[in-house]
Each structure stands twice: as C-alpha cells, then as structure tokens.
C-alpha cells in the first residue's frame, strides 16, 4: 500500500506548470497543482488537472508493432529495433544519409530530443531533423 505525489512538469502547453501526480499503488489517481511552483502558483487549467487521465488509457501502445501485408503484427523489441536499424542502415548505404529524415518531438524531453538529433547527425549522418514547432 503506497500513496505518494510526484512533483513534475505538465505535459500539455508551454507554460510548464509544476504539478503533483498522485500515485496510489503504482497507478495514477489524480493530478493537482503544486502550491509552491513558480509558474502555476497553486493553480492549473482543466488540462493540467486531468493530465493523468490519458496516461493509463486502454488504447496505449504496449508492444512494438511491425506491419506485414498491410497489417500490424506484435513484435519483440529485438525484432522491431533490428528491423529499424537494418532498414535505416540499408537505405543510408544505398541512397545516402540525406535520404533519411527525422522528426523530433515537442512532447518529449530535452534529453530525448538531444539523443534523436544526435542519432540523425552522428549515426545516420544527416541534418534532416525537424519537429512540429511551426504547427
């Protein structure tokens, strides 16, 4: 039996409100504003108050998928990542690195964005990196 609240930053808009995710026995059961956060100052918008809800939605993807004959089939991580690695490598070798493009994500963390652009630039060798900032 465990109840705790975890201080984090809201995943919706760019305000970056500090909030607490309420965790009961490993499940998210709520979100509430952090009173001592410099941005939210103890308030949130409707999205912030409900930011925990989508996380445990039953439609979450839980397994890697590989499309075969137009249908997605569940795969292991090894299968999926090996497929991606070998296809990207092959395209790079046959067509050159600039035939591959990457979209990083305004929804992911700084660390992840850093790594993906590093993957594009250092591993694939292309500067074809962008994200949906303009949209």
């Amino acid at each position: 039996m465990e109840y705790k609240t975890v201080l984090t930053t809201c995943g919706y808009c760019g305000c970056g409100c500090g909030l607490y995710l309420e965790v009961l026995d490993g499940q998210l059961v709520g979100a509430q504003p952090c009173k001592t956060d410099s941005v939210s100052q103890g308030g949130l918008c409707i999205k912030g108050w409900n930011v925990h809800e989508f996380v445990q939605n039953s439609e979450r993807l839980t397994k890697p998928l590989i499309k075969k004959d137009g249908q997605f089939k569940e795969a292991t991580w090894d299968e999926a990542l090996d497929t991606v690695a070998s296809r990207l490598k092959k395209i790079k070798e046959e067509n050159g690195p600039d035939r591959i493009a990457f979209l990083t994500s305004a929804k992911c963390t700084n660390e992840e964005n850093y790594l993906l652009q590093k993957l594009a630039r250092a591993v694939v060798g292309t500067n074809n990196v962008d994200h949906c900032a303009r949209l």
Partner: protein
Amino acid sequence: MTNSIAEIENSKCIFIIGSNTSEAHPLIGSRILKAKEKGAKLIVADPRKIQLSFYADIFVRHQLGTDVALINGILNVILKEGWYDRKFVEERTEGFKEFRKVVEKYTPENVEKITGVRAQDIRKIADLYARSKSSSIIYAMGITQHITGVDNVKSLCNLAMLCGQIGRESTGVNPLRGQNNVQGACDMGGLPNVYPGNQPVSDGQMAEKFEKAWGTKLSTKPGMTLTEMLKAAMAGEVKAMFILGENPMVSDVDIQHVEKSLEALDFLVVQDIFMSETARLADVVLPGVSFAEKDGTFTNTERKVKRVRKAIEPIGSSRQDWDIICDLSTRMGYPMRYDDPSKILEEVAQVTPSYGGIYYDRIETEGLHWPCPNRAHPGTPYLHKDRFSRGLGLFHAIEYLPPEELPDKEYPYFLTTGRIYVHYHTGTMTRRSPSLNKEVEEGFAEINPRQAKELGIIQGERIKVFSRRGEIEIKADLSERMERNTIFIPFHFVESAANRLTNPAFDPIAQIPEFKVCAVKIEKVNH
C-alpha cells in the same frame, strides 16, 4: 520569450496580439489578469472577441492577416508623436532610417483602410504602449502562422526596440510556445540548420566541436524542414522517416498532401504512445512512454528548464523513449549508453553553451532559465539586457502583404483556426482523457449569429465547410465572438479537421504554413 512569466505580473502595459491566452496558455492568461489587477493597461488585438478582451483597456479586431499594417500604424504614430526611446534607438539599434521611411507611409488613416481598426484606436494603442514604464508584447500562433509570419514577428521587434521596451524587466517580445517542450526541442537541435544551442551546422568550427564530442564525421549541409521533407518524400528523394511523438497527419496544413507523402516513403518508423493517424501509416511502431513514466527535463516557453519525474512504471512493454533511441543507436553500430537522463543532460551541458550550467542537482527545487553558461550562473530570466545576440538590434523595414488567399465570390468567408481550452494539439492525449473529452466531444465552427441567420443556419446544426483543398462536415456554433465575414474552427478534431481546409502557403523563411487565414464557403447539410 525574452522575459519570464513571473515578470508579466509587474508589467505596466501588456499588448496581446494573436494569442487567445486564457484558452491556449491559461496560466499565463491568469498572470495577465493579475497584472491588470495591479493596474497594468491591457491592449488586445485579435480578430476574435477573446476572453481577455473583456478586460482590455483597448480591444481592436483587425482583419485577418493585417498584423504588419496594424503594427506599422502604431509605429507611425509613435514616430510622429516622438514617443520613442531616442537613447535606446541610438545606442542599441541600427537600420532606423530605412525603417522610418517605410513606416511613414502607414498613417493611421491608411492603416484603418487595410485593417478595419479605427485610426483613433491605433493612436491610443501607440500611446499606451510607448509611454508606459514597462510594456510587454505577448503573441502566439496568431502572429506566426501566416505567410508573413516572420515579418509579423520582426514588426513586433521593431515596436519593442523603438520604444526601448526590451532588455529590461517586465518588457520584451514574448512568444508563447504551444507545446510543452517546443522550446526544448529547438534548444536541443531538433532543427535542420543548427546543433543544440542554436549552433549552425554549416559553421565548420561548430561541426568540428561536435565531431570531437561525438567521435564521428558530421555533415555541414543544412537539412530539410518538415515541409521540405514531405515534398521530398513525395518526389522519392526522402526514402525513410523516423517520427518521434508527432502527428503531422492532423497538425499539418493540407493533410491529404501529408498522407500521400508519408505513404510514398519506403520506410516509416513512428515512436509514440498511441496509434495516431501518423502511426497508422508506419512500417514499424515503437511504443514510447508518457511524461509520467520517465525522468527528464522540459524547457517551457520562458526558457526555464524544469524537471520531469517518473511517477509510475512504463505501461505494458513500452519503454522510455531515451532508452529506445540509445538501443537503436547501439544496434546501428554507434553505442549510446547513459545510466539515466541526468547523464544525458550533462553531455548537453558540455556541448551547449546556453545549457552549460544546467544540471539536475541545480534544478531539483526550481528550474533555471537559459542562458546559464556555467555552474555558478543564476540563469537569465530576461534576455538582451545590454546587447542583442547580434550586437545591435536591427530595425527591419517591412511592407504589408495580404494573406495568400482572400475571400472571393466563390469562397466568400475567412477561415481561421486555433485551440480551445479543453484540448491540446491533435487531441491524441486530450481526447483520450474522459474528463476533457466529456467537456467538448466534437469540433465546431464558430459563426457570427447574424451571418448564420442570413445563411439559414441554426445553433448546433451540421454544416459543410469547403475550401479549395477539401471539405469537412461540422457542427455550427453561433457566437458573437466572430465577426460576420469570418469563421473559426479548432484544429483538434481529426474527423472535422480544420487542416483539410487550410492553405499550404508558407512563410518563405520560417516555412510556417498560413493556418490562420484561408477562404471558405459554407453550406447547410441536407439530410
């Protein structure tokens, strides 16, 4: 943002243009109200009658896409009345002469003809903004999503520089970032022309620095923007794409085109938490995790780097995104191994001057504003204190250009798009949140009641909206927020996606599509 969120509260005058702040950035909207309660003057310029307009000292509804004209009109008055900051202009800027020449043509009377804003209101805005002790400009996509997006932004910069309303507390030019970590994605080099920290890829020295840090050879040729990638995909010049947690199928302009482009790829990988419209087109889908299942940092719209903390374990067999990327890289022959995300940010600090002093132990309790070049640096809540990044601030002489597509006989109405308070971006998260989806389940088209009456449309009835790109069926919502010639559709709803209608015309520099203006026609649906 040049200035921090907290500073808004102490601003003496806030000019909000192209931002429905209380719906899209609610907690910044509430700061604006707090400033108002402390006596700040509020100027709101928006084609829609947004909530903040109720509290505005002056509210103007300029015709869609006439921002440059409106701002030039304001600049014109300030110059003519001598309300500008001569010292600031002399010491901190250049290009004033050319700029002045262009602006002189934009008298309030001329601008009234273009924008529909009364000359006297333009004078009043100029007065309030220029003569307050500290004025802050706040804008969002209403400014940038135009073919003249860059011009619009430059015009606002002209305004701030002319009045010396920048480089001080509670002033500045403050774009509000739409997504939680757009700022971070840019800072981390999620752009075709720069490495992390805005360091150009075409600069050989930079490339050398990163080659050393990453132990590999790097290309100095700038890459493609998303828009160019899609075009190249269609032409077979891009064969594979890796998309991390983005859904261009709903968010991008002219969806039909996006779909064809993505389908033309030989290989598409999508890493996401839901089977988004984009993921459906993928060859391989990798299940990442939400912000609640990982550690990391986000950089919010005020450039503050804040902690994200793991609250629960990844759902099912999904894996943390950073961990997936490391694994993939390793499998591609470039081993990436980090004990935890704090180690990644340490590497970022090594190669990114603006993040040089940002470490997890420093942002445990409170975030830090970049630039923060070293461990002793307290962070920078506002930018351009004594100099601009380029040295002197450059005035741009900017002429007004109309939107690419204007209403005509066949498509007689303006369409503009945006967000509503309940939903976020393409709705992949908010529409799966029961409390949010319950609040607003479907899209709607806001129409002025008198215009609706002329068309015989009643509240809640289903209508068809057509543009030259496509058509959608949607619920009509009669609202005084809209002017007669304009309708508004939120872009969150895939089944009535506003972006089936929007115009794929782009700002030539920033490549931002003109989401905010296009021409449409409306018809009743006869069932």
